[in-house]
């Protein structure tokens, strides 16, 4: 089989496999269950992170956690797993009005990580805290 035919066959196989996993509804329905779950996820982002305050988005797809030093971790659903960032100097937050209800819009300062819109109680408090957060990035 020539290279081009082999390439096309591989590409077709890839698309079929991705479609099958979609058709089987794999990786769906994953949510942040509760504050303890969110805490465990934050600990994965920053080893030893101890949240004093935790809020979980209404849909369970995102969470914000704040420790006693004012550091804030953002957790988001990523595929069937979760991904998070310690918000730092490049991050920002603002309130946006979605159907009369204020929601929190968070820019983690990383275009490909994506802006997160979170539906929580008292979003204005978090706007203040996030914009005040000046934690250095902390990753390996």
């Amino acid at each position, binding site marked *: 089989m020539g290279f081009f035919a*082999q390439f096309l066959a591989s590409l077709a196989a*890839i698309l079929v496999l991705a479609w099958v996993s979609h058709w089987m509804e*794999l*990786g769906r329905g994953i949510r942040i269950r509760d504050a303890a779950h969110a805490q465990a996820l934050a600990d994965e982002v920053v080893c*030893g992170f101890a949240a004093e305050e935790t809020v979980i988005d209404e849909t369970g797809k995102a969470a914000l956690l704040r420790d006693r030093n004012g550091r804030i971790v953002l957790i988001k659903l990523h595929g069937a797993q979760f991904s998070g960032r310690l918000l730092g100097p490049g991050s920002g937050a603002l309130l946006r009005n979605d159907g009369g209800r204020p929601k929190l819009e968070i820019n983690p300062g990383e275009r490909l990580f994506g802006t997160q819109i979170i539906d929580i109680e008292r979003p204005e408090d978090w706007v203040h805290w996030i914009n005040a957060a000046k934690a250095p990035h*902390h*990753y*390996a």
Partner: protein
Amino acid sequence: MPDFSPIDFAVPFFVALVLIEMIWARRRRPESYEPRDTLTSLAFGLGSSVAGLLTGGAVLAMSLWLYQFRLFDFGDEWWSVWWAWPLCFVLDDLGYYVFHRFAHRVRWFWASHVNHHSSQHYNLSTALRQSWTGFFALSFIFRIPLTLLGFHPAMILFVGAFNLIYQFWIHTEAIGRMPRWFEAVMNTPSHHRVHHATNPLYLDRNYAGTFIVWDRMFGTFQAETDSERIRYGIVRQLGTFNLLWSVFHEWVGIAQDMWRAPWRHKLSYLLREPGWTHDGSRETSDMIRARWLQSRGAAAVSEAEKPVPNDNPIAGQEKPA
């Protein structure tokens, strides 16, 4: 000399096994697959094959040139020396261990190898998540010693392909543990799950390709423990399925760090371990593990210092142990 590529023949089996694992996932663990992740991993595999095809000729030509300087000579009919094949396989696997350890401990090599680790899922499609930049990262240099020893480059490529095929099936959560004797000698799904984990206990462990004995010999072995739920991926998860960013993010990171760093530190961002910084603003795997062990120690001490509950009538009469 057999004139075929083992990997080409293995690909249909790879596809069939991925399908079988998906059926298992649907019944037992639906979160172990995700369509976009699968698509990204398989696109990595396809791109890697193309990159291999574009650069393979150059590697082979260089290897054939080096072959003239070999220490030992198996003769013109080198392929008929039967014992050279298993010997070459074992030594190639040792070379793979060395390469793999460098790939995790030197950021230059990590920038290429990180592609294989950047999925947060662990399934057979992850096995096909191969680097596009292996040639650029000069990963082939780890096979040069075998050529200089006297193994023909074609033989090295052949056994290397079988090594890669072996490593396919160990990328799964569908298999728990293999028989004890097998776990003692061979790399297995259990050992390799540890390798792909980001848990501090597991970071930078189990570099083996086929034989786990190398890790046991060189002190990098860590057994999978039932108490530790494994988290897969990289310490700082990508958080995106963007294919190009997934391929090149660490190279971009190196370039940015070198650009910003003071002159005397620039090279360290290339050659030191991933996570190293001159100002300590990030953490290496050793630092993460040390801090985790420290926090565990503190937790154990605070647990031991807790007073024995007063409502325990027996303990109430004695001091805590």
